[in-house]
């Protein structure tokens, strides 16, 4: 390094490096002051509230893939309650009111209750987890979520012996959600899991992403994240969790039973009737002309969840 000028990249001590959080704070401060001074419209953009989480210790909770850009994660979504276009949720979800918000816990539990979002947030320590997300349409992302295992909640409400499945119901309010006026699906949107799936530590009850409270279009204030299932299984903006004995039918199963099954595990060997599931395009990362990347069995979570489906014919139970 004798003849190379120091351009600020060499540091005698690691402690001299400005921590990422600090320099990002400076930037945010500068941007914030700029926004309030010169551009009042910018300041009216949806508030971004921090929601930190500690690094999760759950096996499989941290994939090494490069996280998808925040703008893509929050700008390219399926959330039919706000329209069927991928840009509709980001454009229209500002009408969603996430406070006050309650989640009703009902059915086969010893402690049925209605939890408001603030007590739900305090139920267990927040963890950060970086999951792959594979959409049934053939694209994928990598998202740093913030939340805790759904099992934390389930343990506290004490399911009875009859609880074999869990049904999730999401908000369907025409006043807040313009897409609910269309007849694309039977509203409200519901999803279901087998009890052992719901109890799996990877099954995440998410409240945030990228260290911040969930933006409305990503399913605020509380949603499921099931990284080994196609994205639509991860119900957004949940208002009811019901423990039941019989396998519930999900909205997509009702809408199109030949195309969408109850399990909907990511499986490159079982094609969707109208397209192949063997490959996927990683949003923002795979170049326009790059070949699509192969989809992994259970989206790469086979070591963690494979045993849940041991002995099952996955062609039949798709």
């Amino acid at each position, binding site marked *: 390094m004798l003849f190379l000028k120091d351009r600020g990249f060499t540091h005698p001590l690691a402690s001299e490096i400005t921590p990422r959080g600090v320099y990002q704070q400076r930037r945010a401060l500068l941007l914030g002051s700029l926004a309030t001074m010169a551009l009042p419209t910018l300041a009216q953009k949806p508030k971004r509230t921090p929601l930190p989480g500690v690094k999760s210790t759950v096996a499989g909770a941290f994939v090494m893939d490069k996280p998808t850009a925040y703008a893509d994660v929050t700008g390219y979504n399926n959330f039919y309650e706000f329209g069927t276009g*991928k840009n509709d949720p980001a454009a229209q979800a500002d009408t969603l009111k996430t406070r006050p918000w309650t989640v009703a816990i009902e059915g086969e539990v010893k402690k049925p209750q209605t939890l408001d979002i603030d007590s739900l947030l305090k139920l267990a320590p927040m963890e950060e987890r970086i999951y792959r997300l594979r959409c049934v349409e053939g694209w994928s992302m990598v998202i740093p979520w913030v939340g805790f295992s759904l099992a934390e909640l389930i343990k506290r409400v004490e399911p009875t012996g009859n609880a074999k499945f869990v049904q999730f119901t999401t908000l369907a309010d025409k006043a807040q959600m313009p897409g609910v006026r269309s007849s694309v699906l039977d509203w409200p949107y519901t999803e279901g899991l087998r009890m052992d799936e719901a109890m799996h530590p990877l099954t995440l009850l998410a409240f945030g992403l990228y260290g911040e409270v969930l933006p409305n279009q990503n399913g605020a204030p509380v949603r499921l994240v099931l990284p080994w299932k196609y994205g639509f299984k991860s119900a957004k903006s949940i208002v009811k969790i019901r423990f039941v004995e019989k396998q519930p039918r999900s909205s997509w199963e009702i809408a199109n039973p030949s195309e969408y099954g109850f399990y909907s595990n990511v499986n490159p060997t079982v094609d969707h009737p109208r397209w192949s599931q063997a490959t996927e395009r990683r949003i923002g990362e795979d170049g326009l002309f790059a070949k699509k990347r192969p989809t992994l069995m259970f989206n790469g979570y086979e070591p963690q969840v494979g045993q849940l489906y041991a002995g099952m014919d996955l062609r039949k139970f798709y």
Partner: protein
Amino acid sequence: MNKLLLHPAAKPLVFVLCLLPFAALAYGAFANTLGANPAETLIRSTGDWTLRFLCIVLAVTPLRQITGWHALARWRRMLGLYAFFYGCWHFLAFAWLDMGFDVAAIVKDIAKRPFILVGTAALLLMAPLAATSFNRAIRALGAARWQALHRAVYAVALLGVLHFFWMRSGKNDFGEVGVYAVIVAALLGWRAWKRQRSRALAATRT
């Protein structure tokens, strides 16, 4: 109006206008402004424009007869060729961006998925029409035979709408498909109605 349509600059202007969607998509692909999933945007937009140009070219004759703007006929060939142009790009975008030019995979996909099969059939049906679009072909075929061949465009439009319908059916999202279906139905219905009326007139005369 006819005078305006016959203006020497009118046809080049329409030519450039028809090329604008393509230019915008090509620019977007290189400038990376086509959103989070540019491949999907390119495949879908070229398909949308194929359907739109099919509607536009099918509107020429009804519009001409209703309004008396007969100069529109001079654009019909160009508009039809644009439908084929966007159709080719639609197929190319699918074959390239979705299938990576893997011929075996493309053939398998066409056979496996009905909506791809229908779309491919529509494009293949458009090819002979594009190939016989120049004056010498019309003379060689004879006007009657040429016209009979080019009626295949009605089938192309119906297959195109069916292709789009099947593509959207998985999501039960038929709003946009409905718009195209109504337009194509109106354009073809007008022809059927015309034909029936002229037949009825001919019958009363004899």
